[in-house]
């Protein structure tokens, strides 16, 4: 069992969530509430990582993060090391490829809140922020929980993009999914099996816990 890889996977998933969840809440809510020109295009852009092969996404990210890109150069100038093949690069890639998994459930949940309920919150004297915290977020919570679980499990399991952008550097970019691949390549089926089972159990647990939580809160709402 490669505990370093396990720890790295959990870290990557946690940091991804920390960065992605606020972004997804804003994007998901705005897409649900507002109508604007080019909304369909934005939605397609968010959904893109669902459709494209991870190698394609990985290829473009590699181009975007690399030494020859403005982003890559800026990052190197700031930190002294490369964005590609680093944990930071992995986090950035992970946030981008998880956008649809986080945004879509939140968007659906926000769309399910009747417009009048949002308006009622404002007419109760709540500021937009207050209404979001006290009315919209609690009502959209099942969607947020789904986003949380999906993003977490998907980050643990992502292989193609991680390999393309991060390579397989121990304690930096070698996640559990990569470590399993490495072990299989080395004909170490036992180690690969243990790690695969760990990943399976962990993902199942994450999904189970959030689903139960979401349902319990849904029941409390009397729906």
């Amino acid at each position: 069992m490669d505990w370093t890889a396990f720890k790295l996977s959990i870290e990557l998933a946690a940091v991804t969530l920390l960065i992605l969840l606020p972004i997804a809440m804003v994007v998901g809510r705005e897409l649900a509430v507002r109508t604007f020109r080019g909304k369909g295009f934005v939605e397609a852009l968010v959904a893109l990582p669902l459709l494209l092969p991870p190698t394609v996404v990985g290829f473009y990210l590699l181009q975007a993060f690399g030494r020859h890109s403005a982003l890559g150069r800026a990052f190197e100038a700031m930190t002294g090391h490369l964005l590609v093949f680093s944990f930071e690069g992995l986090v950035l890639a992970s946030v981008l490829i998880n956008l649809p998994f986080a945004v879509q459930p939140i968007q659906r949940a926000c769309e399910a809140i009747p417009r009048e309920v949002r308006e009622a919150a404002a007419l109760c004297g709540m500021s937009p922020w207050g209404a979001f915290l006290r009315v919209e977020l609690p009502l959209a919570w099942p969607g947020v929980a789904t986003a949380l679980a999906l993003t977490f499990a998907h980050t643990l399991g992502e292989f193609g993009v991680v390999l393309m952008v991060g390579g397989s550097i121990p304690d930096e970019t070698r996640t559990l999914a990569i470590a399993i691949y490495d072990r299989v390549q080395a004909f170490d089926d036992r180690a690969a099996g243990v790690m695969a089972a760990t990943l399976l159990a962990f993902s199942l647990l994450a999904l189970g816990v959030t689903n139960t939580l979401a349902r319990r809160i849904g029941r409390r709402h009397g729906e």
Partner: protein
Amino acid sequence: MASEPPVNGLSVTLRQAQPIPLDVSFSCPAGEVVALFGPSGSGKTTILRAIAGLYRPATGRVTCGESVWLDTARDEALPPHRRAVGLVFQEYALFPHLTVLGNVVAATGHRARSERESRARELLDLVHLAPYATRRPAELSGGQRQRVALARALARDPAVLLLDEPFAAVDREVRVALYRELESVRVSLRVPIILVTHDFDEVARLADRLCILERGAMTAQGRVTELTSRVDIPQLATYYEPGSVLDVRVEAHEPGRQLTRLSFPGGALWSPTMAARSGTVVRIRIPAREVSIALAVPEQISLHNALPAQVAGIAAASDPALVLVTLQLGPTVLLAQVTHDAVSRLQLAPGRNVFALVKSVSVLRPGRATGAVS
């Protein structure tokens, strides 16, 4: 109405051609109920939303007392959460994740933390929902949800109360109880109340003033008691059997004869004993078909009411065999529905002095302690 800006009243002017045509101007003094009446699609709800700040018209001005809520000429628009508005939505729009108490507390954010819950409980008492404080909206009946919505709107301590078809989704029996609650709210709150409805019976029972809307424009506005006696408003004939609505004062009861004496400017009426205290104001309706015309006071007749009146006009009724005669009793107008034959036999024409024989009156709203007789 728009020319007299009322103290602590609401004054609304909205104009736009697109996307929803609007051309309205009206005001509502504190303690009065203005009904916005019209078919669906006439812009009633849009007007309400513009007052609340949920909809921004191309041009318009909304003021409430001293404060300006909307003035497109100066590009001023207060966001909805900064307008002291209580709005009861048609579908109530309660917060499903909060208890009944939580829903009402949610609108008390402008008060000190320590008094929020006690104020919410007071309001639940007012709408008779105290025993349901810990329930969730999903566990309540339609009428109960409606009352939670009303309590929540009141919890905001609104400077204006807006009601969007508040009685449309509840049973007839519940509705009558809610009418009574609204009346007590009107008396205790003393703020302008705007009622959106497409039910003219509600207008006649609840409203002091009326704006009739069609495709976003006002086709008539005025006191309910005046508009109901007019025969030149086609929308009214469509929705309401012709008849006058009057606010009358209860003068005295005669227990021996089981009669109550009612007075209004220009006349007085006897009615079967009414459960209203002397001195209170009762709203009654006198359907045109319950009014006959005589040239002299008939003797030996079961009717109690033969009121001197003057014919002011004669108009066609919806039934081609009948006409509506407008009768002037001092400042008050009554409608009588008679046949063409009667018009020629009695030689009825504007200016002719006659007697209005009133057979029956129906009470629309029981005694009001305050309020002027119009």
